């Protein structure tokens, strides 16, 4: 199958999450992949913060709009969307942040009424991959996960102290994870994460072995339309992969297919999997959106963001083109030079319409 071409589309695609830098969001690479597919339509960026650096990148978003945080609820979200629709049409939205995916799922009908298409999982699929549900849902289906404890209070750590084997990973429900080498570190991370992201907190056994990340687009019926696995080669002190290489491992791919089939996952996602020293695969996490390294998929021959645009529009796609193992990515940060007036526009007006010169 040939790689995807979007040059025939005269539509507007909105993409969220334009922060780059040390903890990048997936929006900018998603847009780059869409543009690489020859897309000539309009790209709208949705941001939550005027300092999301992708706002200031040339040739990324033609227009940028600040959105209300998903926690403010559906009403302000739809009001803002209706305002944006008074300025520009939107045909497809690709949300890229964990915290906003649920609101787009719940508002699917309202979005459709406004002519906006998405390609996302159902709420049930989304909930089943929640970090706190993994341990219940997957092991009965023959998918191993590391020993996991869900804690509603720090007392839980004391109760588990005879059972826990340090080091363990302490995870927030949505974001962030830290290694705790002893019980006092576990308390500290528990309290920090609970204050930042709320309860519950997840304590997970550390599995020694080879870690793989896989970006996938599921068809919603149990099949993977596309899949690109990578091994991280460069990991920052925050645990972020800043370099990686595409691998070809049939048993890893079969394992990932089993995970997607168990969920009947629809849309983009990222699996984090470890091949333990016992030779078994363990599912660590399922992130319900493209990862920030998704350009590696496009670079290796499988443009998953472009496919997602077509799938959202209702096109029937069979399996995506094969990927090239050995394709490498190295992330680098650079300083963008812009004008303070752009920051002024987005800060004061909550929107930025780039002129032809600014693009």
């Amino acid at each position, binding site marked *: 199958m040939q790689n995807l071409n979007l040059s025939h589309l005269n539509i507007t695609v909105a993409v969220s999450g334009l922060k780059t830098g040390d903890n990048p969001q997936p929006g900018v690479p998603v847009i780059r992949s869409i543009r690489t597919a020859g897309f000539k339509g309009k790209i709208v960026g949705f941001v939550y913060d005027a300092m999301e650096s992708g706002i200031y990148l040339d040739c990324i978003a033609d227009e940028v709009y600040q959105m209300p945080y998903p926690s403010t609820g559906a009403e302000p979200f739809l009001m803002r969307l209706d305002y944006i629709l008074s300025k520009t049409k939107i045909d497809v939205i690709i949300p890229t942040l964990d915290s906003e995916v649920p609101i787009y799922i719940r508002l699917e009908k309202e979005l459709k009424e406004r002519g906006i298409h998405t390609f996302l999982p159902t709420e049930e699929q989304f909930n089943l991959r929640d970090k706190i549900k993994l341990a219940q849902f997957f092991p009965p289906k023959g998918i191993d996960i590391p020993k996991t404890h869900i804690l509603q209070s720090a007392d839980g750590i004391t109760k588990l102290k005879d059972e826990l084997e340090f080091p363990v990973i302490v995870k927030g429900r949505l974001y962030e994870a830290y290694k705790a080498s002893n019980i006092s570190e576990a308390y500290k991370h528990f309290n920090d994460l609970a204050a930042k992201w709320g309860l519950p907190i997840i304590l997970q056994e550390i599995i020694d072995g080879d870690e793989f990340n896989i970006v996938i687009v599921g068809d919603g019926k149990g099949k993977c339309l596309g899949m690109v696995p990578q091994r991280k080669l460069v990991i920052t002190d925050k645990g972020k992969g800043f370099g990686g290489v595409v691998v070809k491992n049939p048993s890893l791919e079969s394992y990932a297919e089993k995970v997607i089939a168990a969920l009947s996952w629809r849309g983009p996602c990222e699996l984090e999997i470890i091949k333990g020293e016992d030779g078994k695969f363990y599912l660590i996490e399922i992130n319900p959106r493209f990862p920030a390294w998704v350009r590696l998929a496009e670079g290796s021959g499988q443009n998953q963001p472009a496919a997602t645009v077509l799938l959202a529009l209702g096109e029937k796609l069979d399996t995506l083109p094969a990927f090239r193992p*050995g394709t490498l990515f190295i992330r680098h940060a650079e300083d963008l030079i812009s004008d303070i007036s752009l920051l002024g526009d987005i800060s004061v007006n909550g929107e930025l319409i780039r002129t032809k010169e600014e693009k």
Partner: protein
Amino acid sequence: MNTDQLMTLAVNKNGFIFDPENGISYTVNETGLFILQQMQKGQQEQEIIASLCEEYEVLPDQVRSDLEHYCAMLKSLNLVED
């Protein structure tokens, strides 16, 4: 010696080796590269010794123990099996 895993390696002419199954890469020197290439051609130990002797103009006894050492290292990396 089972060299199935070795056959899947991508070996470039500068001695950079990439294992596409797990993403691990290695580097080997000129002699190491020569031995890997002979193994990928399907040569067994005695044939590799003969190839080394011909290529580097040495005697079999001068390369045998080095080759054993090299094979032990490949085994420890799970690239070959007995």
